[in-house]
């Protein structure tokens, strides 16, 4: 970058200044831009702003394609309109609007939130279609397809003309923006980002996937209702068809175009969605804008061509889309007829070329131009301290069984682990070690058998319940929260304490210096240590480590052995799955060996190593070795 500013400003402060400036400008706009039409548009923009901030909670933060927002918006609008017809005061009408969207939204959330990806999109899509059918067919209440007319009520005896109503909407938008930001930057918001990356890990660490998903969805629905109520008062006329699939697509695309996980993005999306139809009516202005877009899109592939490489699809596709839009702007006989098509082209270019939307791209440029002062890191406190777990067996599994189809992955396993013991679990690949840990930690429900952790019987098949019994685990296949930093990963799953305690946990595993690094940028070994820190931060009595040393370098393994010894000295019971025999020998008091889903040996590391059954499981007996060889040879390729 040629220009570089170092203002010594925190990013948060800068954002506040920009936001206040934006809102002052918006508030002053009616002084310059007169007329009912202009005010109507501005009001619509603020209403859409509220709506899109709500939609961003599911589409952006939860990362699920939510197609019900337009329908919820419609329900809010109808709720408020009916309330106003019943001569209810304005603030109460707003509340009715919120409730009218929140209650059906919650009813949808219960069955839908267990779903992911296309299934979630689909269930919201069918909800949206059902809502429009319902509004159309409940003629006695909603007046069906003919529509519903209302007159805007006054607020505490103040007559709300268009300007005043616009200011009211602007205030609502400001409040929504602020509240959303506060909420989504809190631990709640971190949890939502975490569960998008790994719902299994958030459940296993006691964060509660479903609860957070439901709350985020409820927040989005409530905002849809609020926006709907304002919309009803702004327009004064409602029709069911207006809240159908078309509006939904436009809203969704507005959020993506503006930039997800960002209130600025939602606002920018709202502005584009509101203003685009008006831009299309002015042909010269539109054509010049598209030309500008073409130049922007073409800059990046040209830069690649200059380095004598072929530009990627991500660079060329936006150019093709913008070129098509330009062709339409110049040659189409009526540009407004092509409104949807042009919108689709813009969006295609934006989704492929700018995955973080226009505000995302603007943020990246701003961060390059201006050097913001980093947030200071607190001093680390806490860390691994002696744990007072209840007396008795730390873990007692009795006759656990689990089979997948015909495969008996865990076959009648009984395991007793003493309090404070470090217990090794070894066995050849596919012997059922991870399945056993999955049964204990509640990821799988056992077919039969019982389980007790520190004297508590968790609900079988519930990760959250195993967490409540104070067990914690790490994963053989890493489950990092890729979008969060190391520090945030700890903060989101801490049982108690604040940011300095979180630093304490990072200090304990030696990741203090990487606190502000995103998990997606961390090395494999560091992520393994971070998973242990995450598990420790839940203050478990029983800690299950699933192959912590897999793929680690020699110096990292030494660090790991030190760390596990420290954990052991603190009195935490450890179940350690590991293939490195030296690690097992050094750390474990007793070792259990599994093969083919069954326990085949139990004893001290030394005893187990000399056990002929164990040697056979790992190396095979002479007979079976030759048999295996011939089988491999006979297999067709």
């Amino acid at each position, binding site marked *: 970058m040629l220009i570089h500013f170092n203002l010594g400003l925190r990013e948060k402060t800068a954002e506040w200044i920009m936001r206040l400036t934006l809102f002052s400008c918006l508030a002053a706009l009616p002084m310059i831009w007169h007329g009912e039409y202009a005010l109507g548009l501005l009001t619509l923009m603020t209403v859409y702003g509220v709506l899109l901030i709500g939609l961003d909670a599911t589409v952006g933060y939860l990362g699920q394609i939510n197609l019900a927002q337009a329908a919820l918006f419609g329900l809010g609008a109808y709720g408020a309109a009916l309330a106003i017809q019943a001569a209810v005061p304005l603030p109460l009408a707003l509340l009715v609007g919120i409730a009218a969207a929140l209650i059906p939204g919650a009813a949808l959330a219960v*069955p839908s939130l267990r779903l992911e990806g296309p299934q979630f999109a689909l*269930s919201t899509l069918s909800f949206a279609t059902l809502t429009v059918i319902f509004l159309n067919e409940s003629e006695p209440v909603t007046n069906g397809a003919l529509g519903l007319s209302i007159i805007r009520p006054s607020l505490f005896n103040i007559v709300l003309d268009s300007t005043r109503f616009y200011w009211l909407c602007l205030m609502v938008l400001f409040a929504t923006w602020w509240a959303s930001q506060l909420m989504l930057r809190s631990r709640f918001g971190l949890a939502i980002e975490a569960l998008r990356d790994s719902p299994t890990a958030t459940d296993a660490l006691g964060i509660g996937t479903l609860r957070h998903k439901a709350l985020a969805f409820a927040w989005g629905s409530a905002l849809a209702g609020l926006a709907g109520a304002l919309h009803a008062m702004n327009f004064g006329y409602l029709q069911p068809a207006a809240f159908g699939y078309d509006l939904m697509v436009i809203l969704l695309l507005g959020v993506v175009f503006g930039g997800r996980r960002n209130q600025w993005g939602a606002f920018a999306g709202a502005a584009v969605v509101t203003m685009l139809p008006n831009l299309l009516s002015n042909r010269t202005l539109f054509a010049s804008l598209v030309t500008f877009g073409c130049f922007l899109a073409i800059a990046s592939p040209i830069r690649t061509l200059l380095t004598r490489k072929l530009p990627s699809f991500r660079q060329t596709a936006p150019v093709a889309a913008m070129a098509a839009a330009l062709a339409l702007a110049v040659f189409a006989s009526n540009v407004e*007829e092509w409104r949807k098509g042009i919108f689709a082209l813009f969006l295609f270019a934006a*989704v492929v070329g700018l995955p973080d939307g226009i505000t995302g791209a603007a943020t990246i440029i701003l961060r390059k131009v201006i050097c913001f002062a980093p947030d200071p890191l607190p001093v680390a406190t806490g860390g691994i301290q002696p744990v007072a777990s209840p007396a008795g067996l730390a873990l007692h599994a009795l006759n656990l069984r689990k089979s997948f189809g015909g495969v008996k992955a865990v076959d009648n396993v009984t395991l007793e682990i003493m309090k404070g013991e470090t217990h090794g679990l070894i066995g050849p690949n596919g012997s059922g070690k*991870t399945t056993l840990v999955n049964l204990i930690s509640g990821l799988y429900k056992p077919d039969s058998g019982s389980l007790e952790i520190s004297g508590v019987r968790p609900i079988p098949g519930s990760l959250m319940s195993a967490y409540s019994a104070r067990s914690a685990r790490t994963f*053989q296949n890493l489950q990092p929260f890729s979008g969060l930093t190391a520090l945030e990963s700890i903060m989101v799953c801490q049982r108690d304490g604040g940011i300095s305690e979180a630093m304490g946990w990072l200090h304990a595993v030696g990741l203090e210096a990487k606190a502000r690094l995103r998990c997606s940028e961390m090395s494999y070994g560091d992520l393994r240590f971070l998973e242990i820190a995450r598990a420790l931060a839940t203050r478990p009595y029983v800690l299950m480590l699933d192959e912590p040393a897999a793929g680690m370098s020699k110096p990292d393994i030494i660090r790991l052995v030190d760390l596990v010894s420290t954990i052991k000295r603190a009195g935490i019971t450890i179940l350690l799955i590991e293939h490195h025999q030296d690690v097992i020998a050094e750390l474990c008091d007793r070792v259990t060996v599994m093969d083919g889903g069954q326990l085949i040996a139990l004893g001290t590391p030394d005893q187990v190593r000399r056990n002929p059954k164990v040697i056979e499981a790992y190396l095979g007996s002479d007979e079976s070795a030759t048999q295996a060889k011939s089988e491999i040879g006979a297999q067709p390729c």
Partner: protein
Amino acid sequence: MNAEFLALAQMAVGGGLMGMAYALVAYGFQLTYAAGKAVNFGQGELVMLGAFIGLSLTGIGLPYWAAVPGAMVAGAALGWFVERAAVRLALQQRNEGWILLTIIVGLFGVSAAENIWGRDDKPFPVPWPEGALEFFGISVTWPELAIASGALGIMALVELAKRYTMLGIAVQAVSADPDAAELCGIRSKSAISLSWAVSGAAAAFAGTIIAPVTTVGPTMAAALTLKAFSVAVVAGLDSGFGLVLAGIALGSAENLSGFLIGSGWREAPGLILLILALALRPQGIFGKKIIRKV
């Protein structure tokens, strides 16, 4: 009583035959889902475009028998285009962007159809004889029979090709594990592209057999996508022929509820069924349960 029962049976049969067409569109979802775990949220738009292209081809004087394959070729090209433009990149990055991008491509398709063929619904001429056949007092029209036999025929043909040709087996290998297939010398990308092209052709074919019954118009797309989704999800996205049963059930339910509750509520039972199916059995009635691995 008997007359009323006969009327209901008539409704159910008519709906069930129409439901075969939903099953055929849903089959397009199955094909692409098996190959790359993605489905086209603009599948209804492909059906609509296929129908319009077929209409234009008959408009320039081609007989119906030539217009249908022509529309299928165009549908295959469109399906291939959707995969290339909207799905491939997002799947490489393992994100849900393809849902948005297929919606966007569909949106452009609707806009293009509105501008090329107009916003109004148009009739679709067919060479089927007028009148109807009667079985046990229930009459079945020729276009309805064409829907049922055409849908079953195409599905059977593709399934046979999948099982008994090298190409089909290669596609199955890719759907089982794209990386392993690649190691055996199968081009996974081409196999996925092929699945999308076949899915597009099936959609276009569906368009040319549905249109004679329903007429052609840009608005037919959205409703069809949703119905086909209902069928695919209720049956399960990997259910094979289970979706024919689900299609027949949905078509009949639609007609019966339109008759019994009111024409505006036609689509409601299918949608409620879809939400319930998703809530209670996300893998579908005939689908297999997925095990979480860590």
